């Protein structure tokens, strides 16, 4: 049994991560209680609901920020907070616990979710006040809080099972929010559709998880599953990341003398002989165990488990426990019916950290990544090589299949083609819910998952290519669709789809940091845009007649003069989103990072230039459609009566101001760390690096020239889009017939209808479903009913037959018997003549006959 070494994840234990989940969960439950109690006189006021919700969200943000700070204060390689809450499921080789993990990636996500959640909550508390009853208000906040809770659970999950809980929760809350207006049939129907689309992707995700789990423990040979890697423990020498260049590893491996085994220990003699050859060790070593939470460890044949510094029994997980120098053996008692795991001959010495690391099938992200990074004494990455060698379905790598399943699972949440249809539908939800769904919760989950599994996707270039291509297609088609929408919320929703496509493109091009950056940037600017658009719609008098009317950009115009604050916020959002030439804003950095990644992508068959080109086109389109909405809404002549259009007061302008600030502030994330005298990656990239270890392909050696070229091209595209939009839609230059001109534009019909995605679904899938249903009905009517009818007829025939048999044969026999008896009786009676003399004759003759008979027989 070789002993392993490699850069496995240092873990720091944390005790307070659960607080982050508790805040929104508690608020959600309280609000739900209030929503249910509305009729009973114990209903809470809107103020109480708002205070509870916003307070919970602020608390969650504070906890999230605190943990981000804790994480930042740790050495880079130890930035991984782990909290074991309780054991979830453990059977066979599956071990999944309610473990919360916070690394830079999930920390970024929690900050986005809570950081965007707070302003959205404040905005919602203020704008939803005059809509609906207090019960509806409470229900709304119950769903919002639940959504944030589910998202936090999703990003804090240490393993797939827990992630799945959050994932499903997000899907449920999406349904609850999109179909919030449950008295409105259309809204309910789109909510239902969002849910169903989510279920489709969930099914794929579950399949992907199952395959992910299986492929670590075995593979398919000739159609049968052959496990080749049973769960076991090995000792692993923990190395700093980057220290595992092959020569170095070989040298260390020769040096390393520890040896691990799960099997019975070798013969005593053997062991002694070996230990005689082992060099002496000095100083204390460190021991880490994070698998099988709750497991106890027995060291060196001890009768009692190891004790921690506090004198209590040590229970997994624990990290960096000092162990005196020398060779030790460990018995890990996982409990739950599992055999104890044995690890022997583990060498401890000065400054060496040894992790008892589990191998084999796993659903824990960290363990999977660690396994893939480990090398044995000969420098061979055993697990990784065996994983790559596994094939199924002919000669397709199982890793590719699993990656694709996981990706299409993720695509449903992050609105990638073909599962993007639900996201434009979220505009049916109240604007704050729509903003939360699009920027901070549901939509980011997919990109997050792909980034989280970057180490796995990195094994399959084919899967990465598919991810990048789907992302590119989504980005492009959604951007075209956004060009020709009139509903301002729908424009922004399509824009979200497009931006998520860009993020997916980056992730597929192995630029996970760039993809996550795109998410963060998109969260900031899109929240700003959606909320200012919502403020705008809210302010319009048309809103009283119906949301849909008020959202139509064709009925807007000239609002900039009436709503200067909103207009400014919207403009800043536009600037931030469109890779604008103002380097302080976030979009500039994220788009540039993304474009550089796209151009240098090394995918199968698809040249990076194509991906980069698509990204550039999307950048130009983004700029165009964003400014188009701005000019249509805020510039030019007013239409209709705008009496009473007034800037909202109170919380709304402040929220918008905060979001504008965030748009600018988030730009800091993109600043090159060279300013701080470090490597040269952007700050966010540097921050995310520990989470994304093993997943990024080395950034292409394009050089500064290439980067500058990309920057200039992006700049040109953004400015070009802006100028074009200005030329067409700004107040002075707008044609009266701009709608008609748009109608003649290329791809108008396709874009207007979102590339007929709905129609395709309706005509293909739904029609197929309906046809299948009809077929089933016909089948039921003709075949099943036929069988039933035939059975009935057969039964009747049989009954008739049995009846005939009963009537004719059985009763006939009885009747014949009686008839016979009667007739025999008649016959016999005729012998009874009544003449006494006849009787006497008969008697005499009978006696004579008997006498003769007797005489003859004698």
């Amino acid at each position, binding site marked *: 049994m070789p002993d392993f070494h490699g850069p496995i994840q240092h873990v720091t234990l944390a005790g307070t991560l659960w607080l982050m989940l508790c805040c929104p969960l508690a608020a959600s439950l309280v609000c739900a209680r209030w929503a249910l109690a509305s009729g009973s006189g114990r209903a809470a006021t809107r103020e109480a609901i708002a205070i509870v919700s916003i307070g919970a969200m602020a608390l969650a943000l504070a906890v999230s920020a605190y943990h981000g700070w804790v994480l930042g204060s740790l050495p880079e390689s130890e930035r991984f907070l782990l909290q074991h809450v309780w054991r979830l499921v453990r059977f066979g080789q599956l071990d999944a616990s309610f473990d919360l993990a916070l690394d830079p990636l999930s920390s970024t996500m929690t900050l986005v979710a809570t950081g965007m959640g707070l302003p959205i909550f404040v905005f919602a508390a203020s704008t939803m006040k005059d809509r609906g009853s207090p019960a509806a208000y409470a229900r709304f906040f119950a769903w919002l809080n639940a959504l944030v809770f589910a998202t936090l659970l999703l990003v804090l999950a240490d393993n797939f099972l827990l992630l799945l809980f959050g994932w499903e929760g997000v899907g449920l809350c999406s349904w609850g929010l999109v179909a919030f207006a449950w008295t409105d049939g259309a809204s309910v129907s789109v909510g239902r559709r969002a849910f169903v689309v989510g279920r489709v992707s969930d099914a794929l995700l579950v399949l992907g998880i199952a395959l992910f789990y299986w492929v670590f423990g075995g593979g398919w040979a000739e159609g049968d599953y052959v496990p080749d890697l049973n769960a076991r423990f090995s000792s692993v020498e923990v190395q700093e990341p980057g220290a595992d260049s092959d020569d170095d590893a070989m040298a260390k491996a020769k040096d390393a003398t520890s040896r691990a085994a799960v099997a019975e220990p070798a013969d005593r003699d053997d062991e002694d002989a070996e230990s005689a050859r082992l060099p002496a060790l000095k100083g204390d070593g460190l021991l880490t165990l994070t698998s099988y939470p709750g497991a106890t460890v027995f060291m060196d044949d001890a009768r009692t488990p190891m004790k921690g510094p506090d004198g209590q029994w040590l229970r997994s997980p624990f990290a960096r426990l000092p162990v005196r120098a020398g060779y030790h053996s460990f018995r890990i008692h996982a409990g739950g019916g599992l055999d104890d795991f044995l690890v022997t001959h583990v060498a401890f010495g000065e400054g060496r950290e040894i992790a008892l690391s589990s191998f084999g099938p796993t659903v824990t992200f960290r363990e999977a990544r660690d396994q893939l990074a480990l090398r044995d004494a000969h420098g061979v990455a055993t697990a990784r090589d065996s994983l790559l060698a596994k094939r199924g379905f002919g000669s397709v790598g199982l890793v590719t299949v699993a990656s694709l399943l996981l990706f299409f699972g993720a695509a449903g949440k992050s609105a990638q083609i073909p599962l993007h249809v639900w996201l434009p539908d979220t505009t049916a939800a109240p604007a704050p819910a729509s903003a939360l769904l699009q920027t901070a919760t549901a939509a980011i989950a997919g990109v997050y998952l792909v980034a989280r599994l970057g180490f796995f996707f990195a094994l399959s270039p084919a899967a990465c290519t598919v991810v990048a291509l789907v992302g590119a297609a989504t980005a492009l088609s959604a951007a075209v669709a956004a060009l020709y929408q009139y509903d301002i919320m729908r424009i922004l929703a399509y824009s979200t789809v497009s931006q998520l496509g860009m993020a997916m493109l980056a992730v597929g091009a192995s630029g996970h940091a760039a993809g996550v950056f795109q998410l963060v940037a998109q969260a900031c600017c899109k929240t700003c845009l959606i909320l200012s658009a919502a403020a705008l719609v809210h302010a319009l008098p048309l809103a009283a007649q119906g949301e849909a009317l008020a959202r139509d950009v064709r009925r807007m115009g000239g609002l900039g003069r009436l709503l200067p604050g909103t207009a400014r916020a919207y403009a800043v959002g536009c600037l931030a989103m469109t890779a604008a030439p103002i380097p302080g804003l976030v979009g500039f950095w994220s788009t540039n990072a993304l474009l550089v990644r796209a151009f240098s992508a090394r995918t199968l068959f698809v040249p990076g230039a194509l991906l980069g080109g698509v990204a550039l086109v999307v950048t130009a389109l983004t700029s165009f459609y964003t400014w188009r909405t701005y000019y249509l809404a805020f510039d030019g002549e007013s239409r209709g009566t705008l009496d009473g259009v007034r800037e909202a007061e109170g919380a709304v302008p402040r929220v918008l101001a905060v979001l504008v600030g965030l748009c600018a502030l988030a730009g800091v994330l993109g600043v090159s760390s060279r300013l701080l005298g470090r490597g040269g990656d952007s700050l966010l990239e540097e921050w995310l690096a520990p989470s994304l270890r093993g997943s990024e392909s080395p950034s292409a050696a394009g050089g500064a020239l290439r980067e500058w070229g990309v920057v200039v091209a992006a700049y040109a595209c953004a400015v070009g889009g802006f100028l074009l939009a200005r030329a067409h839609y700004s107040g002075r230059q707008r044609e009266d017939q701009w709608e008609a001109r748009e109608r003649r534009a290329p791809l108008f019909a396709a874009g207007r209808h979102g590339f007929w995605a709905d129609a395709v679904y309706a005509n293909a899938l739904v029609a197929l479903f309906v046809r299948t249903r009809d077929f089933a009905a016909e089948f039921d009517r003709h075949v099943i009913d036929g069988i039933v009818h035939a059975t009935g007829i057969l039964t009747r025939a049989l009954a008739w037959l049995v009846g005939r048999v009963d009537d004719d044969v059985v009763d006939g026999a009885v009747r014949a018997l009686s008839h016979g008896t009667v007739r025999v009786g008649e016959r016999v*009676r005729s012998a*009874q*003549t*009544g*003449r*006494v*003399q006849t009787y*006497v*004759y008969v008697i*005499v003759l009978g006696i004579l006959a008997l006498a003769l008979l007797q005489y003859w027989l004698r």
Partner: protein
Amino acid sequence: MKVTLEHYLVVGAILFSLGLYTAITRRNAIGILLGVELVLNAAALNFIAFDHYVAESHGPAGQVFALFIVALAASGAVVALAICLEVVRSHRGLAVDDLARLSR
């Protein structure tokens, strides 16, 4: 002349034949009854004769049978005469041919 068993048997046979002839030929019920009595007496006579000549050493079994037959004949005659009385009362006569329709 010594009276032997054969003599008795011949007398019995004659009695039996006369009785039978009477029973067959008489149309009157009483006549038939008389014939039957003759037949019974013939049987009783045979019993006595056999008892005396053949089974004397075996006790008086034949004589007992004869007494039984007498008793039987008497009781039969009682019943028959009672029926006869009833028939006379209902049919105004004792012709057995008239009674044939009782069987229908």
